[in-house]
């Protein structure tokens, strides 16, 4: 059973002091220091509680083995699954959704405010008031047209003719902007192109489709 020699009060105040250090860590502003004060100290705190409050140090040793086994299972889970979750592409596969989330999530310069706004009120992301073409593109278009707009999305190989390549100057030379906007709203068939291009009129109104066309033009590489 428990030892009465343990000074619980002392351990309690040690825990509070360690907590103060882990809160202070990020103020130093050095990443590795923060990691040590956050997770290193969490391990120390957890160990203090487990050893002294839960009295595991005077418990039968096989209880420790039993709990260690549970932790080992979690480590196995982590190392078994983490490579697939943490990497977003491999030799024969691409995790489009994860790549799109990363791309959508990191605000770049002037879009920072807009992105922060979209994050705070996600339900409004596609509404006209704060229409963000980039997010809409990634959600609805990138699957076929590719994250970079080159007509090379994961599903692109399933189509003949292939999805349009917005990076090619020839694409823009061959048609007027309002034709592209019409194709977006009413589908490829409406402009005599591939029927595989579905109509997105229920997602984008005319002004948004026009904004999307401007966004697509930015994919041009100038070549």
């Amino acid at each position, binding site marked *: *059973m*428990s030892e*009465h020699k343990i000074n*619980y*009060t002392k351990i*309690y105040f040690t*825990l*509070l002091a360690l*907590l103060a250090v*882990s*809160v202070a*860590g*990020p103020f130093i502003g050095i990443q590795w220091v*923060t*990691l040590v*004060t*956050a*997770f290193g*100290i*969490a391990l120390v*705190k*957890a160990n203090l*509680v*487990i050893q*002294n*409050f*839960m*009295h595991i140090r005077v*418990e*039968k040793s096989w*209880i420790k083995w*039993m*709990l260690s*086994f*549970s*932790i080992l*299972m*979690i480590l196995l*889970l*982590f190392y078994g*699954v*983490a490579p697939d*979750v*943490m*990497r*977003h592409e491999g030799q024969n596969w691409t995790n489009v959704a*994860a790549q799109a*989330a*990363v791309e*959508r*999530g*990191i*605000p770049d310069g002037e879009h920072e405010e807009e992105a*922060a706004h979209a*994050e*705070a*009120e*996600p339900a409004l992301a596609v509404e006209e008031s704060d229409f963000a073409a980039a997010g809409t593109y990634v959600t609805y278009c990138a699957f076929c047209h590719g994250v970079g707009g080159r007509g090379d999305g994961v599903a692109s190989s399933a189509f003949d003719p292939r999805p349009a390549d917005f990076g090619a100057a020839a694409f823009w030379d061959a048609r007027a902007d309002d034709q592209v906007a019409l194709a977006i709203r009413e589908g490829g068939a409406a402009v005599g192109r591939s029927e595989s291009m579905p109509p997105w009129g229920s997602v984008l109104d005319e002004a948004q489709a026009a904004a999307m066309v401007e966004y697509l033009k930015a994919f041009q590489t100038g070549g």
Partner: protein
Amino acid sequence: MTMTKPIATTRSASGIPTGRLAIWWVLASEVVIFGGLIAAYLMHRLGHPEWADAAAHTNTWIGAFNTVVLLTSSFTAVMAHQAAERGDGKKAARLLLLTVGGALTFLVVKGLEWRSEISHGYTITANGFWSFYYTAAGLHAAHVIAGAIIMLFVARDAAKNRELHRVELIGIYWHFVDVVWIFLFPLLYIAK
């Protein structure tokens, strides 16, 4: 018929009182439940640098305050255990009620924190980070609620000097809930 306890309650083939053995089994499975969730969170967090932007919106001071509350409640729980070992059921019951007070404080603070976050649009469906935030903290809060309820029953018996060994058992569970929070705090509030 006289009331007798089941044989399993009083025997101890393993050298550990049956109740305490049961608690360790519960915790061995809890390790897998919380461990699986935290492992899943970690691998997604490492694969999604953009989550740092979402994590920047959690309030470190509220998290730290709740950590103090839980550490304090763990302290009162272990003091209750000490009192029970000395046969002082009344004191053990008082300390357990203090621990329940800590649990309620924790939940009230968490409720206010969530209300503020939800009103700013940071809901469970906002993005992956907030999904994990509410799932992990919510599962933890469910354990706090369960522990507080059980503690009330244990305290009621302990006040009459009955079933004092249960004070230690609920204490072990409570310290585990504390340990889970010790890890959730840096994961959700400090690493930004």
